[in-house]
């Protein structure tokens, strides 16, 4: 009777620490399960795209989390906080470019992954759920690209998203609701950024983590499909384990991705355009390259026919694509012996690529458009060359927005004079902006009533008194003027 049951004999030379760790974690068995996955027909370069996608996703998560250290998702701050990242923070431009190029790389790898698995018929033989979970990942990734594109809040991203959400609004029945839900109202604004941000960093990534797990789990359950001449249900070919050769290929591919994306980010950093100006009527919006085919396609469906272009045709194509493993059910995997499946797939692929190229060619053919796009490019380069200008706080006096209900100007002037002469300004700063000695008072009118403020000035709280806040001594008229002035601070 063996006292220890092991699936594989422990390789010689395991250190004492490793044995200690293994007895407590089962790491040997876990590594064995993860790495010793049998691949019928052996390791191949054709299989590197899936793990390449996983690698890019992890890189996006890491760079994204670090960018979030500085980025603020609100209309007033989004653009300037990103400008700060790109122009001031060390390695900011590099990591932001890596994140931006990473998104493009993910789309490219996704296409290659789909082309490989479709051509190899890897969805055959009880692998429908792998395909379906992959379709969900496809949609989630396009959602990441769409939501992330708005966040810089520059001209380009603002207008591209305005058009994108308008297109969704064209969907019959539910379109208006989807558009309003995405924008957080009828117009694009600070609520739109915060919704896109939360989708981009919480909801969609959570879905991607979940479905990557499912995708891999289902893949391991069905087993690798192997080359095209392999039987997808009962593999006949000799197998080779994932570790080490396939892992080395995958890692070399990851290394290539790092080298290419790193070099691009270093030598050609992604530019940031001028801040979005919704009043600009001359800006010509163009989506990111991977949305150009859809953009071009919609030009063919003016007016009422938009229903066909936006819903019916894409619906049929997406439906056929998602249902592929249920429609192409024979176990035959050779692409040349699957003319219908491969033909339709090739047709759609060619149409997508063709539409993308057409979009580019059409822009170049119209001199006015080409010139305007060139000007926009130049504006973006000019903006990048400008030094960083910080957002000024407290520079403008709080006089803006005097309405009929506002107290008479002379009371405010008297209050402001008291604010200086009674030395409130010494600790609370000019315009109530605060100093290291005492908190800001701007906006206090929204938090406290006039009576509350007056009572506090006469009898400061014990905590405030301890840090030097004196009680107001003087006429009630002066007190009221001071309160009116404090409440006017914004």
């Amino acid at each position: 009777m063996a006292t220890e049951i092991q699936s594989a004999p422990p390789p010689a030379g395991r250190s004492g620490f490793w044995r200690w760790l293994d007895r407590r974690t089962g790491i040997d068995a876990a590594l064995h399960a993860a790495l010793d996955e049998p691949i019928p027909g052996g390791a191949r370069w054709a299989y590197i795209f899936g793990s390449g996608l996983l690698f890019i996703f992890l890189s996006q998560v890491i760079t994204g989390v670090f960018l979030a250290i500085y980025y603020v998702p609100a209309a007033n701050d989004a653009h300037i906080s990103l400008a700060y990242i790109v122009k001031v923070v060390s390695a900011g431009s590099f990591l932001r470019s890596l994140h931006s190029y990473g998104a493009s790389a993910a789309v490219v790898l996704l296409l290659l992954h789909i082309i490989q698995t479709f051509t190899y018929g890897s969805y055959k033989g009880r692998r429908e759920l792998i395909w379906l979970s992959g379709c969900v990942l496809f949609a989630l990734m396009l959602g990441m690209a769409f939501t992330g594109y708005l966040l810089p809040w520059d001209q380009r991203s603002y207008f591209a998203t305005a058009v994108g959400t308008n297109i969704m609004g064209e969907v019959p029945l539910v379109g208006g609701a989807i558009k309003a839900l995405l924008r957080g109202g009828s117009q694009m604004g600070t609520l739109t950024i915060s919704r896109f941000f939360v989708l981009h960093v919480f909801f969609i990534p959570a879905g991607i983590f979940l479905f990557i797990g499912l995708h891999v789990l289902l893949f391991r359950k069905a087993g690798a499909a192997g080359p095209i001449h392999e039987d997808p249900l009962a593999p006949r070919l000799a197998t080779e384990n994932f570790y080490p050769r396939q892992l080395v290929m995958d890692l070399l591919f990851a290394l290539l991705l790092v080298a290419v994306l790193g070099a691009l980010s270093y030598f050609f950093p992604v530019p940031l355009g001028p801040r979005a100006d919704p009043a600009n009527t001359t800006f010509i919006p163009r989506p990111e390259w991977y949305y150009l085919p859809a953009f071009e396609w919609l030009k063919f469906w003016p007016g009422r026919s938009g229903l066909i272009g936006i819903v019916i045709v894409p619906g049929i194509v997406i439906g056929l694509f998602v249902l592929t493993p249920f429609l192409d059910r024979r176990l035959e995997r050779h692409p040349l012996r699957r003319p219908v499946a491969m033909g339709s797939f090739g047709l759609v692929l060619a149409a997508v690529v063709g539409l993308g190229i057409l979009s580019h060619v059409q822009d170049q053919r119209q001199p006015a458009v080409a010139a305007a796009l060139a000007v926009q490019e130049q504006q973006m380069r000019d903006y990048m060359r400008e030094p960083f200008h910080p957002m000024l706080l407290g520079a403008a006096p709080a006089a803006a927005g005097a309405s009929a209900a506002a107290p008479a100007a002379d009371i405010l002037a008297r209050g402001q004079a008291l604010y200086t002469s009674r030395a409130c300004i010494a600790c609370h700063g000019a315009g109530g902006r605060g100093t290291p000695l005492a908190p800001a008072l701007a906006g206090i009118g929204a938090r406290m009533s006039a009576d509350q403020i007056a009572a506090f000035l006469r009898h400061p709280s014990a905590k405030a008194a301890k840090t030097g806040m004196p009680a107001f001594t003087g006429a009630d008229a002066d007190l009221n003027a001071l309160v009116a002035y404090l409440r006017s601070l914004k």
Partner: protein
Amino acid sequence: MNTTAPTSPASESSERGGRRSFLGALIAVGTASMAALLSIPLARLALFPLRRRAGQEGWSDLGPLESFTRLDHPVARQVTIEQPDGWERAITQQMVYVIPDSHGQPKVVSSVCPHLGCSVQWRRDQQRFVCPCHGGTFALDGHRLAGPPARDMDSLPHRIQDGHLYCRFVFYRQLLASQEAVD
């Protein structure tokens, strides 16, 4: 005798194991060095603010030296100080006084009372500085005369350049007997 015969299954498997663990080590070293390389820009990004100094940058011009030749009373000047805060820049005004030092040369003191931070004012009738909050008083040269403050009025870094007097505004901790800048 020949224990290393290539036909021996034991030695073959241990040879393959050797190749596998060599590759494994290669993969581990490669992955670790790649991760280390990638973490350099991440660390630079995250640690960036620690390498920046806060506080007023540059000097505020208080005017030509001629305005401070007869310092029989303090000359009040408002300085605009800019405090960078990430991508924002807060602009506030502070009052400083130009007063004579022991040699009659101009020096600059903060109007912030070293007691609890109220704004000290010059009282012409009393010929002294009076803090309106808790009654601390200071002489024309900033020396503490009476009241709760624990030290003299805070002198600010100042310099003369091209015939103009410049100062840099600094916040100091309250209540201490010695001047200590607020970070």
